[in-house]
């Protein structure tokens, strides 16, 4: 692989990064080639000592996505960060995707339960309209009570979602630095 091929592969691995950052990174490797050539190495020698440009690109992309998700934690940013970290290696497929699916499941379940509880008076109404003549006051009272509980669940879920998101991002960050930077807290 020569310098041009190396830089092209690296650039294509960095497509998802903002152009300014991508340029900055390419600049670093370009500098590396320039100095290496001055010292009498060939482009091929330098490229092979650097290692795979795709792997380097993946590492850089993953830390970028994690950083982005940490500053603005939208669902799509988090998904991108999860994918990027998973892309780092097979090891991460298990150690990241497993907890991620489990947490999404817990959150989805909590929100669904809260939502259903809040909506239960409406459901009683619908059920009474559908099966006319089966009205019972008991249903109404229970559904109002459920609605109240549901509101608490929804409020709780709101905070739980925030906390879990934050925690999971920290886990991602730790994980990315585990794969590329070793155990920093070990």
């Amino acid at each position: 692989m020569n310098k041009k091929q190396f830089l092209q592969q690296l650039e294509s691995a960095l497509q998802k990064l903002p152009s300014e950052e991508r340029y900055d990174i390419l600049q670093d490797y370009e500098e590396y080639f320039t100095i290496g050539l001055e010292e009498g190495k060939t482009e091929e020698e330098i490229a092979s000592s650097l290692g795979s440009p795709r792997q380097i690109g993946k590492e850089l992309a993953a830390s970028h996505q994690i950083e982005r998700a940490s500053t603005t934690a939208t669902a799509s940013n988090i998904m991108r960060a999860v994918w990027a970290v998973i892309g780092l290696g097979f090891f991460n497929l298990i150690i990241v995707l497993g907890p991620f699916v489990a947490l999404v499941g817990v959150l989805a379940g909590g929100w669904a339960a809260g939502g259903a509880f809040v909506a239960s008076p409406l459901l009683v109404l619908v059920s009474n309209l559908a099966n006319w003549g089966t009205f019972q006051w008991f249903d109404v009272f229970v559904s109002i009570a459920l609605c109240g509980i549901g509101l608490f669940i929804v409020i709780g879920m709101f905070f739980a979602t925030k906390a879990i998101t934050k925690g999971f991002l920290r886990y991602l960050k730790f994980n990315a630095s585990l794969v590329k930077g070793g155990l920093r807290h070990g």
Partner: protein
Amino acid sequence: MNVQFKKGVLELCVLVLLDKQDRYGYELVQKISDQIEISEGSVYPLLRRLTKEEYFTTYLQESTEGPSRKYYKLTDKGREYLHELIAEWNEFTRGVNQLIKEGEKHE
């Protein structure tokens, strides 16, 4: 040696090399690869990450031979982190060495 393990140590190597003087990327990579076998390309992502975490600042400086080079300078925060890492490292190697010594005695 195990790749993951070496990558962890890389952070310490980079920080310690910058403790006494500012250096540019190529220089850092060469200094390290003179001593340990590493994948040289992985040093730059590490440098970027540590810069973002404010352990380094960077500046460009003209060189006599060619285009300007990006120098890395350790910040106070970085130096503090370095000292933490060195303490951890010493503790770690002391433990491992002790185990090796005990293991060899029994043979």
